[in-house]
């Protein structure tokens, strides 16, 4: 539901880390999206595209890495991917599982053209 503001955060973070002169060379932005993050990947992709269109980041595509929900049972130590959000251990039935991953929502890295100078100049407006 709030993918647009999340996409805006991603664009802001990219601009913070990528020098302005290199922005046109950015071809992909890798983000890690956990299944518990509440983010709909298709919607995030759409919002990101809308935000960068017509800007110096217009060549950037979102590269979404899906992170499954993984728990570790505090009782028997088994590692498992819970069904839905009910964190019962399938090995021992214990209800005290610790979340290891799944709530991730991170910008991992950006990829640029080998030679950003070769990239087409942003359209003048």
């Amino acid at each position, binding site marked *: *539901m*709030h993918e647009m*503001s*999340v996409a805006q*955060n*991603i664009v*802001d*973070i*990219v601009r913070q*880390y*990528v020098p302005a002169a290199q922005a046109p*060379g950015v*071809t992909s932005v890798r*983000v890690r999206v956990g299944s*518990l*993050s*509440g983010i709909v990947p298709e919607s995030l992709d759409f919002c990101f595209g809308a935000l960068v269109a017509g800007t110096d980041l217009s060549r950037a595509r979102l590269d979404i890495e899906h992170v499954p929900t993984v728990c570790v049972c505090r009782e028997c130590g088994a590692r498992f991917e819970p069904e*839905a*959000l*009910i964190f*019962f251990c399938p090995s021992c039935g214990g*209800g*005290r599982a610790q979340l290891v991953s799944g709530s991730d*929502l*991170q*910008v*991992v*890295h*950006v*990829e*640029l*053209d*080998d030679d*950003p100078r070769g990239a087409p100049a942003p359209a003048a407006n």
Partner: protein
Amino acid sequence: MPVITIERKVLAKNDEIAQQNRDLFARHGLFVFNLVSSPGAGKTSLLERTLETLRDRLRIAVVEGDVQTDFDAQRVARYGVPVVQIVTNGGCHLEARLVQDALAAIALPELDVLVIENVGNLVCPANYDLGEALKVVLVSTPEGDDKPLKYPGMFRNASVLVINKVDLLPYVPCDLAALRRNALQINPALRVFETSCTTKAGIPEWCEWIAAQSSRRP
């Protein structure tokens, strides 16, 4: 292909401001909770009953979040407590920055408890830390006993569950035991209260809990 490593949480900025809010609350010894529910579950009604009960014992202020109107702030203001309305203009949740801005209008040193009433929504507010000590999720019996299973993120991130409108149980298809069981399956650590803002059932227990949380603060 050149790569610039970033490894930064998308909501890092929100988390930083939330931490600033949390530090500020700690400095003033404030107990702060973030009240979340779907629209119409009774957040503001619960606050009204709470203020009625506790306003002579505790100094309470309220931050109200709504998509439009200051109706809720008007309701709360009748109890003579400081209240700030945040209108999100379509925004589906409160963010730490909005709360930080709202705090400027509240005299924090003169308070014991601050309640942040979030926008009615069981999805997005789960993911935004505002700097609160804990989240209280409210669910009302007419919504049905399957709510925790349909919106697990919120129930997992909350510390307290208030089941409201228990006076309607004879009239609505909601199995109270199933509702509790479903919520505790998602989050076995939930502290559960059952309330009715109409009959005031359960309100004293809920208010005692708030008072106890507040007195545990330095």
